[in-house]
């Protein structure tokens, strides 16, 4: 059973109740992020991903700047932002940025897009950027953005006249290195209560995924929720006549490796303050179900379960960061099981 593992390098301060990604880290440390990146490439992680947000209400580095900077200290890992909000940048400019990054990195870019989930509304609006509460509008904007980007990546003169975006004889050269083009990833929320966009955005987005994605990424979710999500994707693919097997499935999730239950419960405590009112999970059982949390054997088994569903890529956040124990243990004991 083969699978790829991408390291989610934290470029935000942990003290943020929006997302319990790195409960043990409370400050931004780019030097540490850089060192962790270099280590992960050495340890055999396949890819490097990072957040793409403007503020998320707290301290966070701008995703594309860091992605570009870290591309220069890596040679083999694939590179991408997690859910690049296509709303932050004109898509033609994004095509240009990503073509350049693909060239500079020698063909390692994954262009990972999303249409702006409700959690991103505050930062988008506070920065004076356009925002629509209507998920259908945001999805339509994303679809146009993808069309603009694919056209420009061809290197040919491009003209696109859409409802939201347009180009007129635009040229994007040098074009990306990857043939036919960098894979387009599209993300949806996990289906777990906290990540389910109550506006129904995920329902809208799954259709966009079916139509356009080379890779589909889901946020942290139990095996059962992933199964349900995948079934929805299959249904959508049948509706539009696309083979769901063409779409690579990725899961972005948290890893908490512990020697035993006591240790895991201790790790759970570190996450609790980021889980006000049970926002992300209600108890120890749900914690174990929604994330990859347990002994090495339990983690391997859980990944095998996801793998059997068809998920071949994993983006992993480590719950003990900035400690690199989890990173190392995962690389030593888990990754080799999936080579």
């Amino acid at each position: 059973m083969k699978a790829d593992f991408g390291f989610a390098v934290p470029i935000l301060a942990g003290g943020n109740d929006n997302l319990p990604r790195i409960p043990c880290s409370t400050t931004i440390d780019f030097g540490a992020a850089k060192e962790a990146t270099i280590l992960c490439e050495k340890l055999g992680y396949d890819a490097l991903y990072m957040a793409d947000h403007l503020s998320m209400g707290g301290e966070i580095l701008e995703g594309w700047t860091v992605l570009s900077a870290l591309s220069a200290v890596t040679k083999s890992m694939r590179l991408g932002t997690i859910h690049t909000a296509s709303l932050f940048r004109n898509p033609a400019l994004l095509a240009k940025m990503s073509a350049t990054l693909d060239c500079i990195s020698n063909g390692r870019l994954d262009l990972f897009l999303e249409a702006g989930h409700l959690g991103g509304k505050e930062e988008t609006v506070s920065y004076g950027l356009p925002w629509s509460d209507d998920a259908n509008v945001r999805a339509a904007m994303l679809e146009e953005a993808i069309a603009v980007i694919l056209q420009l990546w061809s290197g040919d003169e491009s003209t696109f006249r859409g409802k939201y975006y347009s180009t007129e004889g635009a040229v994007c050269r040098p074009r990306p290195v990857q043939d036919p083009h960098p894979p387009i990833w599209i993300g949806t929320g996990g289906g777990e209560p906290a990540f389910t966009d109550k506006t129904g955005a995920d329902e809208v987005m799954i259709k966009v995924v079916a139509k356009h994605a080379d890779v589909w990424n889901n946020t942290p979710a139990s095996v059962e929720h992933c199964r349900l999500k995948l079934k929805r994707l299959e249904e959508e693919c049948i509706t539009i006549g696309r083979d769901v097997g063409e779409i690579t499935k990725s899961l972005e999730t948290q890893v908490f490796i512990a020697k035993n239950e006591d240790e895991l419960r201790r790790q759970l405590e570190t996450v609790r303050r980021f889980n006000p009112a049970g926002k992300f999970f209600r108890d120890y059982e749900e914690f174990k179900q929604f994330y990859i949390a347990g002994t090495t054997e339990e983690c391997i088994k859980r990944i095998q379960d996801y793998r059997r569903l068809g998920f071949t890529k994993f983006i992993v956040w480590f719950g003990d960061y900035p400690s690199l124990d989890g990173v190392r243990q995962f690389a030593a004991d888990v990754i080799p099981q999936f080579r």
Partner: protein
Amino acid sequence: MNPRTKFGVCLPVFDGATVTSGAPDANTVRSVAVEAENLGYDSLWVPDHLMLGRGDSIFECWTTLSTLATATNRIRFGPLVLSYSHRSPSVLAKMAATLDYISGGRLIMGYGAGWYEREQLAYGLPWEPSPYKRIEMMREAIKLALVMWQGEQASFNGKYYSVAKAVCKPKPVQQPHPPIWIGGTGEKYLLRAVAELADGWNVPAMAPSEYTRKLSVIKDHCNSLGRDYNSIEKSMETRVMIIEKESEAEQVIRWFEAFKAMFGRPDPLKPNASTLEEAKVTYIIGTVGECEDRIREYIKAGVQHFTIYPLDLPSTRTLTVLSREIIPKL
């Protein structure tokens, strides 16, 4: 005694940036950056364009700049200069705070009012035909950035741009903010904006006497605005090549001809030269002695910081000769 004259290197990120260049090459860009740092140059620069050069082939500015944060350690760097409307000014302020932060405080923020209508319209980016309005928008973009870089939460309600309780953290390392350079030549409004807001001024190559004249315009604006003229760093972008052999001279002439043919439309990068003699008048081209004389002329005219395109890259001959044989003598 005058402060030391500074020298920065403009990276060859577009096809046609140098006499030998083809499509931009990442390895070349990186090795030039590293070598410039090793030789003690003061700064690295990247133009901000989407379509430029032979075949419109150019690397995107901010992506390239960001790699310098990890590829180099000490040298300062920046865009020369940003086209104001490529990115939302609020997003740009965030990008700048991050790049300054991760580079340990080495960013110089170069802003421009934008002139390249063709690429703006092609990419579906906003284009304001009135130069006056473009300068107004640039001024607002700068003021917005200053607000975002300083407060806990920024609110700014401008004519063109606004933010409401925008959080921009972490802040830039440089305090009170990264130096702001403004590029351009317009005497009524652009140079006035320089006097109002800039820590540095940059302009494409012009005759020394013309450069001096522009400085006096800036000085007048400074006086009327109550700004210290001496607090503004005076810089100029130019092209440099040490040539000793006839064959090298020919290379330069051929490049000028190709360059002129490439830009069959108004373009400030188009050299005003079709012969070597004209090239020598426009840029800093010639023997070591001739180049030194030209540089001294410009220093006398008021240039404090040269931002140069070495025309013979990827050969580092001009880069090396300049740093080892000319600069130490100045």
